[in-house]
């Protein structure tokens, strides 16, 4: 069954068409790679799904539920979470505080609640930053700040995780480590969509790749098929290598 169904999604910014009639689906337990050259609209698709941008046309369904017009917090509470490209931790709160924020109930009368210290530890441990819990975000190395972003997303207990360029700015060793951690999430039964502009980190990780070019669907298939695909090669030749 499809967890996420994006149908005929169109997003215009004034006269600029960022995403043009784009459709794709994600099945339960899958890891789907969403790739495309820079500026092809990948992040815009994520922003539309997460309710950060209003959708110009088309619809988005999550577990059969129409979430096209939902705002971000509603989307998150339905079980979708996004790790954005930019890290935006709250600098005045410790790593534990940042994770805890993502477990607080959306209730104006709830004075207590949210994750216990053990639960926060568990979320952190799933992405190996449990030793950093008392650190402040600006004291962490880049890769750990990125991991904190993932821990925050995990803390919302998502069914589907959207990862926007999770490997950006990481060295080869860190990429391998993170890919292994993402692999573990799959074993735990999490469905994921990973955006990247090249296939490097994704090759061994994803089940299926969807290629976006100029806001439009270009191709889809297994990583091997996509690597061989002429249209994809051509799209990337215009910009950079695959």
């Amino acid at each position, binding site marked *: 069954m499809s967890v996420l169904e994006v149908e005929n999604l169109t997003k215009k910014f004034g006269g600029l068409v960022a995403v043009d009639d784009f459709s794709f689906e994600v099945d339960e337990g899958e890891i789907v790679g969403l790739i495309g050259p820079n500026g092809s609209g990948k992040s815009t698709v994520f922003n539309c799904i*997460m309710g*950060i941008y209003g959708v110009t046309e088309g619809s988005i369904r999550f577990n059969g539920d129409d979430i096209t017009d939902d*705002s*971000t*917090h509603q989307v*998150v*509470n339905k079980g979708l*979470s*996004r790790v*954005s490209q930019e890290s*935006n*931790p*709250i*600098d*005045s*709160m*410790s790593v*534990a*505080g940042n994770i*805890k*924020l*993502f477990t*607080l*109930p*959306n209730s*104006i009368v*709830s*004075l*207590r*609640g*949210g994750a216990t*210290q053990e639960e*926060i*530890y568990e979320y952190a441990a799933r992405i190996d930053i449990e030793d950093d*819990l*008392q650190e*402040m975000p600006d004291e962490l190395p880049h890769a750990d700040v990125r991991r904190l972003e993932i821990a*925050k*997303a995990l803390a*919302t207990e998502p069914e589907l995780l959207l990862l926007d360029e999770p490997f950006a700015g990481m060295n080869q060793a860190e990429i391998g480590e993170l890919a292994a951690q993402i692999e573990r999430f799959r074993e735990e039964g999490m469905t994921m969509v990973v955006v990247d502009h090249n296939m490097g980190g994704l090759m061994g990780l994803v089940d299926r790749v969807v290629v976006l070019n100029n806001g439009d669907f270009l191709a889809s298939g297994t990583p091997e098929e996509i690597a061989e695909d002429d249209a994809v090669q051509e799209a990337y030749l215009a910009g950079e290598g695959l």
Partner: protein
Amino acid sequence: MSSETGRSSGIASRISGAAGRAGGAALDRLTTVTGPINRVLQPLANVYNRLIGGYFGEMNGLQFVLVVGTLVGLLTAPFWGNYALIQAMIAASIWAILAMGWDIQSGYTGYISFGHSVLSGGAGYTTAMLIHNVNPELPMLVTIPVSVLAALGIGLLIALPSLRLSGPYFSLITFVAVLIFYRMMNPLSEYTGGETGLAGVEKIFDITEPVQSYYLFLLPMLAVAVALLIVARSNIGLILLAIRENESAVEAAGINATKFKIWSFMLSSIPMGIGGVLLAHRFGGVDPGSFIVVDNSIEMIAMAVVGGMGSILGPLGGAFFIILMEDIVLHAFGLDAQLRWAILWIIVLLILVFARQGLFRKLWYGLERLGGDRR
């Protein structure tokens, strides 16, 4: 691991950061003396920490002594203070309510309101207008709740349309709200008394009973402080602070930031209403100059800034600092009111430039450092 204290002391270390560094070395040397004192006092603080620390935040021994000492000082003031001091402390109590009320909304969420005097003024005017226009015999049991509700109503009227906006628009709207409210006084002078305002509100300050009267202002102030502290130290306070720091992260956490912003405005309107009513009962009337003009809103902000925005107790201390400076300290030099305020504004400016975290927050974290490491 204690993540609550870990987090708060984490915030502490960051906040006291840059400005504290210079005096830091000297402070650390002092710790050799104050550390042992703190350890002696710590058991007392620990009783508090165990019983109610979870609601208000934990303290070390020195901080505990500061809080208890201040509380004892406030509660016993009529027995050691002179008449002028008691008068000033009554005013300070009212302004502390207003400054704390402003803080739970503007200080915590970072959506700075320049219009909070509309809320307190609205409540004060409601009291006076009920007595003037409806029935002079109305008991306070009726006028006070109605006036506080009026502040809440005005608060919603401002918050609902404006808090969906971000950036400077919210601040501008609150500012304009004061101007509208102020300009309505004359056209509606039949009901509002125009420039001169309305008199006839029962004075609860009895000159023959200064002691008793004092508590009528102090106790509501302490109650407001306790209530706001419970909110501020709870998840709600955490979320409001997170909105100030990074609103999109709050949304990504599955939390409706707009709902919390509106809620903070409502939480703020209630103390603003209480403060406005107390002000009306202190003066025995209302007038635009003492209740509504935008200066009032700015003075609340000044108190919060001086004490430390986003801390509740900071604005409380700031209100007492500013009022006691104006009415007692600078007064003792024989300066006239204009000059006293000019000096106070310069102090506010200096704090904004050099100690943006506020005097009382600096004091608080200073005591934390002086206490030495307790973990």
